């Protein structure tokens, strides 16, 4: 058979296996290589909450889905066209998501009776008809890997650890990806363990050659690179990494050094981990004893003149609310990143949800307004983080930046901003004691940020109500009224510095989809597909959740129906109802710990439009 390539426009592959099988690594390597090839892509890793659920059990299944294409895409794909399953538990919990007629590559080396039992299977799905309708390719990958590494003198356990690279090799061949990026990566990764470089490289190549030689597949595919991608520099990025870079860049643009006070919590921990590596950028990270100490050190650092930041997830945000109120009262800049996960309480720690929006808006004692900004996708994380830093420093306020588990762990190519497009917003600390008051405000109502070490500007801040002029403690009734309104007006004034969000589609029509956060990819894909089919549907995606930008009412009024899909029970819809009483907002909610699929959104939207009630 010739290696003639069948062109495909887009492909979704899902790698699934036991937590111990290295599927996250396999997926990530495939992603990196695919990015370098020049495809557009989006990924969705999905792993269990346990470090190690029992080997071979359904609870222990770890998955990684990657969607890549020769045109712009916005989601990791709805239904995969290829499923790579390393064991029975992985197969049985995933095959039903596959497209009809899709390819299943199975590692038959893990289908002993014992393996089936671990997966709580009474019969073998490979033989009992479960997989009819799919193209199943069986291969004893365990055996093949052992053969490939037979003469290396490694123990069986170590050899079997390489089976994911063997698998990766097969898939590389199938989609005609180069092996070089992974071979290079292995050299760096195992620099101190040459035998592992050798073993994994061999496994990779053996898998590749196996595809080449044995004609396991009925053909070989090619997904050409995106040709109409805008010119520029690109980099593959995960959401948490994007936030980390954005926070540091944001501080630099403000002319400040960042300080991150944090406490590990899934799925936010990576941000702390990334930033801990950036010491040559003068980034200080302190892993504190809890979330409260995390935000409190950040407040202290902001008082001392750094840009304080803290990163967490829902339960941690709950703990930080009292201190967030202190930052509101003292009017110090601070960025609070909340990477949302399934709730309530500990909930579903490794699953996605958007259910902390109302907590972010209202979860503090007293009248305690602060701005809320949300990332749309991994490639948007940088910009959103910079925006949070801008607002925090320009308006002297804590800002909540919302991300979620889907953005945090998903990856996609990110078109880097040109350096000249990153506009600085330098902070101007006062130094002149003449007539100084810490509560003097600029035209934006931001107060003076005097920093310890500056002679003559000694002053005290605190959580008690402050006199509007002097900043001293004040229990005066009228002053409290003034200060409450000033704090509110300052935050509302931020809307003068933010644009009305762009519309994806026409300015009037049958259906407006209003989204925020990580629904972005799926809503955009759904709306664009409908547009192609001639439906007058438009997407309004919101980065700023508070204050709401100017011009929304006019937009809402241009549409027959306004639907708000969210991975919660309608939280943005509630906010919009509060703010735009005349408009009917129709929430569409999903609470399954999984992102929306473009097709389920489209189906829902179409249903809505049919129902002309």
């Amino acid at each position, binding site marked *: 058979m010739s290696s003639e390539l069948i062109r495909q426009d887009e492909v979704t592959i899902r790698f699934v296996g036991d937590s111990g099988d290295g599927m996250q690594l396999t997926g990530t390597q495939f992603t*990196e290589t695919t*990015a*370098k090839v*020049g495809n557009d892509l989006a990924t969705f890793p999905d792993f269990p909450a346990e470090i190690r659920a029992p080997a071979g059990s359904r609870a222990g299944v770890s998955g990684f889905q990657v969607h890549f294409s020769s045109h712009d895409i916005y989601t990791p794909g709805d239904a995969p066209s290829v499923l790579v399953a390393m064991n029975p538990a992985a197969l049985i919990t995933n095959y039903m998501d596959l497209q009809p007629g899709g390819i299943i590559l199975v590692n038959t080396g893990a289908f002993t009776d014992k393996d089936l039992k671990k997966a709580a299977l009474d019969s073998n799905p490979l033989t009992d008809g479960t997989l009819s309708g799919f193209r199943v390719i069986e291969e004893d990958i365990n055996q093949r890997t052992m053969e490939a590494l037979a003469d290396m003198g490694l123990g069986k356990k170590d050899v079997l650890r390489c089976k994911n690279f063997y698998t990766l090799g097969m898939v590389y061949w199938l989609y005609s990806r180069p092996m070089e990026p992974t071979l290079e990566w292995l050299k760096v990764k195992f620099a101190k363990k040459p035998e592992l470089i050798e073993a994994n490289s061999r496994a990779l190549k053996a898998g590749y050659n196996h595809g080449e030689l044995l004609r396991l597949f009925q053909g070989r595919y090619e997904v050409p690179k*995106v040709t109409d991608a*805008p*010119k*520029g*520099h*690109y*980099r593959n990025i995960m959401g948490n990494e994007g936030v980390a*870079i954005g926070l*540091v*860049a944001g501080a*630099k*643009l403000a002319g400040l050094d960042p*300080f991150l006070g944090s406490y590990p919590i899934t799925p936010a921990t990576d941000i702390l981990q990334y930033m801990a590596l*950036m*010491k*040559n*950028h*003068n980034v*200080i990270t*302190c892993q*504190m*004893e*809890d979330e*409260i*100490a995390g935000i*409190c*050190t*950040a*407040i*202290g*650092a*902001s*008082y*001392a*003149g*750094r840009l*304080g930041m803290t990163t967490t997830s829902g339960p941690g945000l709950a703990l930080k609310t*009292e*201190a967030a*109120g*202190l930052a509101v009262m003292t009017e110090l800049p601070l960025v609070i990143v909340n990477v949302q996960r399934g709730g309530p309480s500990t909930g579903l720690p490794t699953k996605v949800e958007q259910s902390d929006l109302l907590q972010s808006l209202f979860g503090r004692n007293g009248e305690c307004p602060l701005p809320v900004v949300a990332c749309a996708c991994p490639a948007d994380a940088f910009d959103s983080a910079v925006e949070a830093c801008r607002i925090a420093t320009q308006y002297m306020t804590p800002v909540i930046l919302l991300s979620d588990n889907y953005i945090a762990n998903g990856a996609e190519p990110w078109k*880097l901003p040109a*350096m000249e497009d990153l506009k600085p917003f330098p902070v101007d600390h006062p130094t002149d004691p003449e007539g100084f008051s810490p509560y003097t405000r600029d035209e934006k109502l931001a107060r003076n940020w005097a920093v*310890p*070490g*500056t*002679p*003559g500007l*000694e*002053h*005290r*801040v*605190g*959580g008690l109500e402050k006199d509007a002029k002097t900043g*001293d*403690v004040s229990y005066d009734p009228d002053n409290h009224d003034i200060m409450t309104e000033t704090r509110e007006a300052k935050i509302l004034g931020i809307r003068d510095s933010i644009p009305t969000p762009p519309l994806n589609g026409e300015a009037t029509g049958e259906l407006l989809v209003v989204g925020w956060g990580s629904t972005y990819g799926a809503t955009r894909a759904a709306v664009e597909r409908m547009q192609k089919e001639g439906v007058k549907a438009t997407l309004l995606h919101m980065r700023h959740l508070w204050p709401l930008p100017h011009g929304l009412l006019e937009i809402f009024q241009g549409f027959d129906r306004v639907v708000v899909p969210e991975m919660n029970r309608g939280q943005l819809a509630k906010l919009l109802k509060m703010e735009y009483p005349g408009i009917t907002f129709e929430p569409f909610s999903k609470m399954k710990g999984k992102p929306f699929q473009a097709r389920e959104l489209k189906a829902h939207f179409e249903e809505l439009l049919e129902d002309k009630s």
Partner: protein
Amino acid sequence: MSEVQQLKAKDFKSDQEVKWCPGCGDYSILSCVQSTLASVGVQKENVVFVSGIGCSSRFPYYMDTYGIHSIHGRANAIATGVKVANPELDVWVITGDGDGLSIGGNHMIHSLRRNVDMKVVLFNNEIYGLTKGQYSPTSPQGLKTKTSPYGSVDAPFNPIQLALGAGSTFVARTMDVSPKHMKDTLGIAAEHKGAAFVEVWQNCVIFNHDCFKGWTEKAVRDEATINLKAGEPMVYGKDKDKGLRFDGFKVVICSPEEAAIWDPSEASPAAAFMLIQMDNDPGMPRPMGVLRQVEAPTLEGLIHEQLSTVTDKRGDGELKDLLYTADVWEVE
């Protein structure tokens, strides 16, 4: 820096009216801290006082320095942020037995173990003053207060023992009614490079009047306490007629001649720990002064050292380096 001015105690007074009850022990601590700052010779703009909430925590308002009157229990954490962000600043934490040991107990022990270079002055009045008289984690078992009308059932902390347990590098105790002792003690604390924990016995005239009377009153003080001085024998009594020495796990009374020489810089905290056990024995004097003083790297020192080391190795990071890494590809 330009010409450095030698400031006086009064230069540290802010323009705010002091709002404690007449007779409150807090006044004396305020003036001793002001004197101490003057005598160690700091500049106002380099000093930050951080407090939580409580009568004691009003303190920063009365100091003409930088300051944060924060939220209940969080002073140590906030102060850690201040110090790490700018190690040039002199950071003082002012807290109470409720603020620093009840709600703030965790930040207290963690900041002590991390050895953040800051002075922690804990006003211990064995009561919650600001909320009008409830028992605190240092109130003796049995104390009748508004929330313990039949006597408190909680066994208290000994603040010194807790600080030693947490691994504090500097631990000391003094009292409101002895300004000289307090100034001496605070002076040594101020010079310590690392977390310095200073418990101050402070009388709350309103809600727990005279709770330390049995040790602080002039008439009994010399017999009921011993003032530890580094390098000097542990003698006490009005006529310096008693000494202390270590015997097994205990401290025992002996003649002044037999008294052990006190060395707070002993590497092991066991000596200090043995001394503080005297608090439980009515026949023994309570130790005052510096109980522990050892050198160890500070948190902010280690953090900034790592920043320098990494920067030396990898070069000053530019904004561009953050974005344009090795993994970047170009579409033309």
